[in-house]
């Protein structure tokens, strides 16, 4: 029986066998795993970089255990590549590519993406880009050190950045990464449009799928100008053109224009999937219908639209016209409204539910709480007057870590612990999960609250050693505190890896639907077979995804595929 089904599912596609099956597969689940584990690997590297440069800031000049003495150039390369890697090689591949690939076909009841081979190509391009960015660290002159925003002329003139090869490879790697996500994004959007299970209408699609697809659309629409800018920058670096060179008729501010046009939508590209993940988890573990499903979707769309109107808030002191800055202040304040609204919607969903504080639920709740701090401090920065003081201080740095950390780390852990049973067929250990949770969340706040204080005290970003600034040197204890907390947090990550490994080897069997959730991915085996469901028994959809605790039903959940 099972064999027959497997044969049916395999009919349409004969993949390679053996180990090649895993690196040359077009199965969306395997590609998701590839993205996931590449992303985790890059996260470890990014985390190690953070450890090294935080140690330098806390104990300037002393050799860092496991690395050695950090030179100023290395320091710059480390912070630059930490930022680049965490955004483009961790947040995007894990949140969008890995979970998008894993969840979209499973949640909409499709057997795979509509373009499986493009999907595979997407990962391969991504892998090359990841290898390139790592290579760029070791070439002659060292890795690029001109900040993840790569403003010219520092990035375009090798006499200034002193990393001729490193900066070009860095740029090529980033550009390739965009290509990978373009290919992936097309796939996500078309799959959602064309491959939904029979009966799944627009408002029966799980929120996380909507969010990932809206994020992909945002990405596709905003990345073009940056690619244009990146090509120009690459030509400036390698061909000797003068697009960003004012002495030759070019314009350095132009880069900021093109970069931030992408840069701000990009932050919502990573935010929306994380918001979607929390929506799934919160409804499952409070056994309640999502409060205002349509409101959530429309709010996400509105956020997407607004996110195209705010990007100049990164340039308030770049010499832009203050009248233009005013307009962008207003739009920046406006965009916090839909975000706040979503947080309220989630809290309203929790209200009166029967809440189960499992590990994924803890992560989801922590996401809301911590992200709020990031959003609120964004409002300070959005006021163009206040930003004259805050710009490029640690206040900005703490702001965006309070947004990105919840998104990329907390959101990922939430999703990972929630879907782990589906991905690997085993339950994770809840006690270890909770130890890891608290061991991450508490140090996280101890890292970045001090950085807010330092930023308010006037501590500028991207400085190798603050001892040379008398009025900043005094605040050294705060820096040591932040570094210490970081080390504690990193140490607790071993608990996670141990838990993951142990659960995978010898965890309790998960069964199809361990959380008693409604969405379609829980109706197939864990882990799902190739083709996701038996080809002759694909799911059909009869209702929306959040019918929990429906009065008059014996079960407190009502899977989407059960008729009547």
């Amino acid at each position, binding site marked *: 029986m099972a064999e027959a089904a497997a044969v049916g599912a395999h009919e349409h596609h004969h993949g390679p066998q053996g180990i090649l099956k895993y690196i040359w597969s077009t199965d969306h689940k395997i590609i998701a795993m590839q993205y996931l584990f590449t992303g985790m690997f890059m996260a470890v590297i990014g985390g190690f970089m953070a450890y090294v440069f935080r140690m330098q800031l806390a104990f300037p000049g002393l050799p860092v255990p496991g690395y050695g003495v950090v030179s100023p150039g290395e320091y710059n390369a480390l912070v630059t590549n930490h930022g680049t890697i965490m955004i483009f090689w961790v947040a995007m591949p894990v949140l969008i590519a890995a979970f998008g690939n894993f969840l979209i076909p499973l949640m909409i009841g499709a057997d795979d993406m509509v373009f499986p081979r493009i999907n595979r190509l997407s990962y391969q391009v991504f892998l090359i880009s990841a290898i390139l960015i790592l290579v760029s660290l070791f070439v002659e002159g060292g890795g690029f050190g001109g900040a993840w925003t790569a403003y010219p002329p520092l990035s375009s003139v090798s006499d200034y950045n002193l990393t001729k090869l490193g900066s070009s490879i860095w740029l090529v790697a980033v550009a390739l990464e965009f290509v990978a996500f373009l290919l992936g994004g097309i796939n996500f959007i078309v799959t959602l449009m064309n491959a939904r299970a029979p009966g799944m209408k627009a408002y029966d699609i799980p929120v996380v799928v909507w969010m990932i697809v809206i994020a992909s659309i945002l990405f596709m629409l905003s990345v073009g100008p940056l690619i244009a800018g990146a090509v120009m920058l690459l030509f400036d670096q390698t061909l000797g053109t003068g697009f960003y060179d004012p002495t030759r008729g070019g314009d350095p501010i132009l880069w900021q224009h093109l970069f931030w046009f992408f840069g701000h939508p990009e932050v919502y590209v990573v935010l929306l999937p994380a918001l979607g993940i929390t929506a799934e988890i919160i409804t499952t573990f409070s056994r309640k219908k999502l409060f205002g499903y349509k409101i959530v979707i429309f709010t996400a769309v509105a956020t997407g639209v607004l996110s195209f109107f705010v990007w100049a808030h990164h340039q308030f002191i770049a010499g832009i*016209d203050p009248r233009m800055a005013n307009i962008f202040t207003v739009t920046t304040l406006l965009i916090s409204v839909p975000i706040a609204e979503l947080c309220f919607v989630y809290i309203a969903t929790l209200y009166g539910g029967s809440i189960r504080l499992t590990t994924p639920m803890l992560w989801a709740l922590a996401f809301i709480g911590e992200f709020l701090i990031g959003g609120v401090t964004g409002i300070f920065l959005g006021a163009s007057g206040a930003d004259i003081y805050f710009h490029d201080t640690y206040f900005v740095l703490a702001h965006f870590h309070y947004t990105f950390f919840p998104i990329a780390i907390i959101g990922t852990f939430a999703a990972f612990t929630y879907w782990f049973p589906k991905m690997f067929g085993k339950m994770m250990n809840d006690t270890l999960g909770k130890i890891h949770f608290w061991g991450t969340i508490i140090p996280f706040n101890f890292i970045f609250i001090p950085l807010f204080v330092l930023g308010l005290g006037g501590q500028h970003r991207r400085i190798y050693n603050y001892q040379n600034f008398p009025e900043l040197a005094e605040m050294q204890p705060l820096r040591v505190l932040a570094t210490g907390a970081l080390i504690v947090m990193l140490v607790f990550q071993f608990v996670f890896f141990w838990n993951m490994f142990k659960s995978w080897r010898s965890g309790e069997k998960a069964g199809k639907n361990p959380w008693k959730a409604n969405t379609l991915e829980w109706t197939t085996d864990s882990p799902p077979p190739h083709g996701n469901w038996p080809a002759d028994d694909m799911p059909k959809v009869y209702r929306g995804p959040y019918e929990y605790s429906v009065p008059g039903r014996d079960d407190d959940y009502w899977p989407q595929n059960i008729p009547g």
Partner: protein
Amino acid sequence: MWVVALALVALALLPEPGFACPVCFDPNDEHRQAFLATAIFMTVLPLGMVGGVGIWLRKRLRRLDDEEAPPEPPANDPS
């Protein structure tokens, strides 16, 4: 909606130029305007494209629905 629009217009028009302000004027005003114009252009273009396709797809969906099924009773929305 109107309040927002009004506020936007007011904020754009009310601030007086400060003469100590180094970035309020550009000897080359065309340059300042070019930034503004391209900002508007790049923002409106994607939204216009997606909006247009969205509307077109909705229409097409309606048409496909009409062709196939007899008109359904309006779905009562549980939320």
